[in-house]
């Protein structure tokens, strides 16, 4: 087993276990911290796939900005203690079973699909994920969506202020 494979399995296990802990944690603050662990694992996957720009953006935007916003809101509402009323057991069971069925069907579909059999995602090589290459394409072909996204941010900012304002 090569080092790449060991890193892949380690990061996958870390992502799955942390994602499950997000579900099972009673305390919302612990859920946020486990979700940050998931994001670190996914960033590790990006680095393994040589998509370094996305790895750094994922860490800065998701683990840095969005999760701090979540923590901030949870602590603002003082939800540290467990006050979640539980759904009844049958609803939980139905949710878990339907999610598990979806996973089972999709996995069996993937395993017998001939189109992707034997295809390899290249790891550690290829320079399409480097920032120079992505920046050239972003500012040549995707300038208009990029500028529109700045308008989207402006409207989101104004929307958040208007919604959150005490009337």
């Amino acid at each position: 087993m090569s080092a790449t494979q060991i890193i892949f399995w380690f990061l996958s296990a870390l992502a799955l276990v942390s994602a499950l802990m997000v579900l099972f944690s009673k305390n919302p603050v612990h859920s946020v911290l486990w979700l940050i662990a998931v994001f670190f694992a996914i960033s590790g996957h990006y680095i393994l796939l040589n998509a370094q720009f996305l790895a750094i953006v994922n860490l800065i935007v998701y683990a840095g900005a969005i999760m701090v916003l979540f923590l901030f809101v949870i602590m603002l509402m003082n939800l540290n203690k467990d006050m979640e009323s539980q759904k009844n057991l049958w609803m939980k069971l139905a949710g878990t079973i339907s999610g598990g069925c979806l996973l089972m069907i999709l996995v069996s579909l993937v395993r017998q699909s001939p189109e992707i059999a034997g295809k390899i995602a290249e790891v550690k090589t290829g320079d399409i994920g480097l920032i120079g290459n992505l920046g050239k394409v972003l500012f040549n072909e995707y300038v208009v969506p990029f500028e529109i996204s700045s308008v989207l941010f402006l409207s989101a900012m104004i929307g958040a202020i208007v919604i959150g304002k005490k009337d």
Partner: protein
Amino acid sequence: MPIQYYIILSLALFCIGIVGVLVRRNVIIVFMCIELMLNAVNLLLVAFSKMHHAIAVVNDKASAAGTDAQLFVFFIMVVAAAEVSVGLAIIVMMYRNTHSVDVNFLNRLKN
């Protein structure tokens, strides 16, 4: 790495997110599970972009196939950041009005 491994990992993360949306009642945790699903999709897009690059680079050494997918991931992150700011503002407003973060109280919208 075979692409199936990445697909199955992403599917597992996505389904964990779906189960979280279905079984939890805390609206913040539901929101975090939606973020988890978005990240599973991002991981899958990056893996597919590297798969297409690996196929294209056999014929053409300087091929840039797969760059678009990584830019799509970038735009998904941009939209997710905007979505989170508005969503958390709605949650704060909801908490201010009802002093609860239970999703069930939203069923009063139907009256």
